[in-house]
């Protein structure tokens, strides 16, 4: 009998968590695998906290965080990052907004000075706001122009309906027109406070790391607003279809509602996604790509929203293939997950690939900072460990039960098709 699948650590490195007097939670991930240090500052604010009709505010503010604060003029954060040989970036999701830097281990405190300065306040020059609004309008146009992005936005909007997860993170052009310096400053004042933030410092850290954080950020006053209470996820209760025409390649997304990462059966669904989509031997890779020769590519996975997830299957069709045939095979494969539990060798292979995938997801220091920060900001540091263990321990019967409960498109799902324009 083969040795059991390996159990990677849920989070890389040695973790220590502290809370400063102003409420800022600080997590140190000590890991000397490379002479680098990453910082990741997560604010518990995202698209879901925007008032109705004010979509895109959180993301707009993320852009403006690089456009000037008391100590750093427009563009200076990037210039300093470059001069120090580092990298930086930021992202906004429905739940969170995150800013991250990676520097050589001897100069990373520069990131703390920047974060402290822009947490205290922004310049928000009206001309800079107007210019950045135009940049975001271009960003929206780019997303709408990509057939996959456009299809995914439409599918998520249909799946989540009026729930904030159904809104585009970038907002709409009409919504952005109404946002100016005053609105952005107000949003910053409400949510960009230390008691609404989590800072992860990961990498080749010295013992003084926490003191450096305290010195840079400990003096900023708390006072974040409580987050608005989220509405419950909608119940679809039926299979809905979306059809659009863009480009010349057929594309298909099937999205089914799924529980949030801390809810029962989320982990089982992750393992089910591995069974159908991870590796060339997985069920649907074989059925649709390797043997069926219907699709160029196929993927399966779960989104990670703190309030709810979606189990998503995506396929890019080979030319001339009938999307109806792909749809039939997808539905049949989902049904089979509930009636034909995986054999031991099949499940063992999926577990091993799942474990490898988990390790690769935290291979680099900045990945470790982001994964740890997201866990701490949302559902707790224990959550990844629970999820990993549950996924690897799930039995064939438990997986079949989860599949019967969640993977039934007729009970509630959105099927999105992007079909060739020339065929219209």
């Amino acid at each position, binding site marked *: 009998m083969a040795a059991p*699948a*390996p159990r990677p650590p849920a989070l890389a490195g040695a973790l220590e968590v502290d809370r400063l007097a102003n409420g800022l939670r600080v997590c140190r991930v000590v890991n000397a695998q*490379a*002479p*680098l240090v990453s910082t990741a500052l997560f604010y518990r604010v995202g698209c879901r906290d925007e008032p109705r009709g004010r979509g895109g505010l959180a993301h707009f503010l993320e852009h403006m965080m*690089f456009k000037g604060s008391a100590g750093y003029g*427009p*563009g200076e*954060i*990037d*210039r300093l*990052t*470059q*001069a*120090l*040989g*580092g*990298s*930086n*970036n930021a992202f906004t999701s429905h739940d969170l907004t995150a800013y991250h830097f*990676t*520097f050589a281990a001897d*100069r990373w405190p520069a990131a703390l000075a920047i974060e402290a300065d822009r947490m205290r306040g922004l310049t928000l020059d009206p001309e800079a706001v107007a*210019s*950045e609004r*135009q*940049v975001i*309008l*271009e960003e929206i*146009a*780019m997303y*709408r*122009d990509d057939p996959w992005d456009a299809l995914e936005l439409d599918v998520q909007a249909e799946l989540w309906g009026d729930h904030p997860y159904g809104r585009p993170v970038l907002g*709409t052009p009409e919504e952005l027109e109404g946002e100016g310096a005053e609105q952005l400053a107000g949003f910053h004042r409400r949510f960009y406070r230390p008691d609404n933030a989590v800072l992860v410092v990961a990498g080749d850290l010295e013992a003084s790391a926490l003191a450096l954080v305290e010195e840079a950020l400990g003096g900023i006053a708390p006072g974040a607003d409580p987050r608005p209470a989220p509405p419950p996820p909608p119940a679809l209760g039926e299979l809905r279809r979306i059809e659009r025409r*863009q*480009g*010349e*390649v057929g594309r298909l997304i099937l999205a089914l509602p799924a529980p949030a990462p801390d809810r029962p059966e989320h982990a089982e669904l992750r393992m089910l996604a591995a069974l159908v989509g991870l*590796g*060339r*031997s997985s069920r649907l890779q074989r059925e649709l790509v*390797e*043997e069926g*020769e219907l699709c*160029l590519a196929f993927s399966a996975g779960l989104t990670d929203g703190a309030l709810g997830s979606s189990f998503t299957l995506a396929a*890019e069709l*080979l*030319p001339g293939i009938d999307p109806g045939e792909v749809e039939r095979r997808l539905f049949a494969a989902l049904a089979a997950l509930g009636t034909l539990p995986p054999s031991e060798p099949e499940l*063992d*292979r999926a*577990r*091993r690939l799942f*474990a*490898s995938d988990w*390790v*690769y997801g935290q*291979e*680099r*220091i900045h990945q470790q900072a982001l994964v740890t920060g997201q866990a701490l900001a949302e559902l707790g540091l224990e959550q990844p460990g629970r999820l990993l263990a549950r996924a690897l321990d799930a039995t064939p019967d438990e997986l079949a039960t989860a599949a019967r409960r969640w993977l039934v498109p007729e009970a509630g799902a959105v099927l999105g098709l992007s079909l060739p*324009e020339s065929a219209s």
Partner: protein
Amino acid sequence: MVAIRVVLVGGARVELAPSTALLAGRLLAEGTGRRDHRALAEAVESLGASLSSFGGYESIGVAVDALAADWERALELAAEVLFEPAFPEERLTFLARQAAAELEALADQADAATALEFSRQLYGAHARGRPLQGSAASLAALDPAACRRFHAESLARGGVVVVAGAIDPDAVARAAAAAFAALPPPAAPPPPAAIAPPRRAVRRQPATRARDPVHLFVGQISVARADPDFTALELAGVVLGAGAGLTGRIPQRVREQEGLAYHATAECVAGASIDPGRAFAYAGTSPDLAARAERAMLEELERFVAEGPTAREVDEARAYLLGREPFRRETARQRAELEAQSALLGLPLHDAAWVRAELAAPSRADVAAALGRRLDPARLARVVGRPRRALPRA
């Protein structure tokens, strides 16, 4: 984890018919004399590992990523795939169909389609002037015998085996020497292809499948990785737009100052390897802003070549590239790929001290002189990918 990379010299730059390197490379993982593609995938995935094979512009080869404890088995599988490929006809037919679909998918991405046309303008008949997939016609024309021949010639040209990760180097070296005894070391790196820049400026406006954005590329052929001007131009590229965030003259002017694009970037040695890379500026913008963005990019390039960078810009670019060095060696996969590239190019790119010395050498005057030699604003190629059927913005 352990990363294994087996790389054979050659690739599309030496193929006689388009598509050959890509499909011959990909076919390696589609079955061997011992097992078909299904059994091979199961053998690999039962370890929780991944195995893929590839065909690129300058090499073909095999990549395996596995748990460190499984390095021996992973090495055996890599050797089996490299030395015993079966080139089954039905898998070639399938891969050719997939590659044709990739060409369609590329055409759906207006930025990628415009970039392909830009490469065609720069590289002409050289392999880099066409996609690795070739065309639907070249894909359909390829047969297993041509792939087998290409593979045999690639093996004869020699190659390199790299294993990186948490391993016992002596044990791995012994096992690799035994498993790959039939693989000759690569000969001296081949000389770069001579690719003449156009005699005068060219401007093309291909129609894309975009609904709104216009994609602009402006640039020229630059230098190969081994060229003495490479490092000076790498520094120039950072000054122009290849650095951190939105620094660089192109993103500063096009995005930050004028708000003309979400994505704006520039490089001076993009893709430089055995053959020359490209110096270019790029912006993705809307039809009503495209003319302004194009003008801004041209002005910045002309000014940059005429005046050269400032001393501060060069110092910051140098600091940036020096600071980035540890980023390139964080993972086993990165280290394996860096070692393989070093062996193919005959340059010690894996040696951080050598890289630091290279970066320390060029002065501001050196960078300005290299720009003057290698970038001629009067002979830039401009490719403006425009929507064939623009839709009004929502």
